[in-house]
């Protein structure tokens, strides 16, 4: 019983953090669905940990804890890969912007040097 209290409290806190970040527009909308789904899953499992055992038995994993660990690691790896991908895209975008800035600055400097008529 005490375990259920612990997991339920954790789940509620997690969901509250995600909701608050979304409300303050600190998370882009494209991540909304992902994190809300994660939060809700954690809440459901937090309040009804026994569901996990049924699920793990259904897919052939001996204990619910192993299943959670396995899925958790896979999920976090996917998130990491996604973030690396995002970072690469952002680097490419900032690179283009840096080039634009250099071109614009040079153009401005050239215009300033031209004699005013």
């Amino acid at each position: 019983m005490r375990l259920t209290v612990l997991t339920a409290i954790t789940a509620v806190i997690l969901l509250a953090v995600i909701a608050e970040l979304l409300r303050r527009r600190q998370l882009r909308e494209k991540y909304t669905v992902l994190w809300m789904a994660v939060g809700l899953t954690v809440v459901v499992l937090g309040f009804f940990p026994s569901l996990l055992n049924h699920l793990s038995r259904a897919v052939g994993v001996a204990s619910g804890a192993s299943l959670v660990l396995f899925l958790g690691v896979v999920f976090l790896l996917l998130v990491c890969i996604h973030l690396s991908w995002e970072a690469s895209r952002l680097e490419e975008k900032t690179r283009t912007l840096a080039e634009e800035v250099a071109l614009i600055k040079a153009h401005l400097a050239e215009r300033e040097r031209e004699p005013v008529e």
Partner: protein
Amino acid sequence: MINDQRVLIIVPAMNEAASIADVVGEIRGELPGTDILVVDDGSTDDTARIACDAGAKVLRLPYNLGVGGAMRLGYRYAKVHDYEAAVQVDADGQHDPRYVPKLIDALQDASLVIGARFAGEGDYQVGGPRRWAMAALAFVLSKMAKERLTDTTSGFRACDRALIELFAEWYPVEYLGDTVEVVVRVIRLGYQVKQVPVAMRQRFSGMPSKSPAKALIYLSRAFFSLVLAITRR
């Protein structure tokens, strides 16, 4: 104007205040009337000002992007200002501008011309794993290009208008991508690649790394970069 072509010399430079004035001065002396563009790759020293005083056009990147980043900016400039050929010359004085007309001449029957160090001229030497890496790269790329290429990592290269337009949009910023991957892609797209023997000189400033560990890392990165380039479309 070299061979009736509007040629832009692109010099990527990062913290080269010690040598940039000599490099720009020498290019102007050897190739009067040719435009020189120094791309200052986020230097923290006076590179940009010195290059400007020496008579080069200067573009300043707000932060360091690496040689590939600086070169793409150079090619964008060349594209916008309608240059017909562009030549990359390093800012450390290794590349002798007297060979530039030779590179431009060779553009008549190739789109990309590489100034190669081991092709008979000069006495440039490297040893150990770095040498094997360069030899392996040269072997694979020569097969692909159906043309003898002995020094694919050389930064001394000239390209024509078609490649200026390609490089203005696409020029890898990764380590060795700017040399190896570019050659692979250019061959794949059906352009002719050729080399011209050049003598390299001692750098005006800076020293090449001699440590075996670094050479080994270089070898693996070269291999990695080649495999990536070949598997890419």
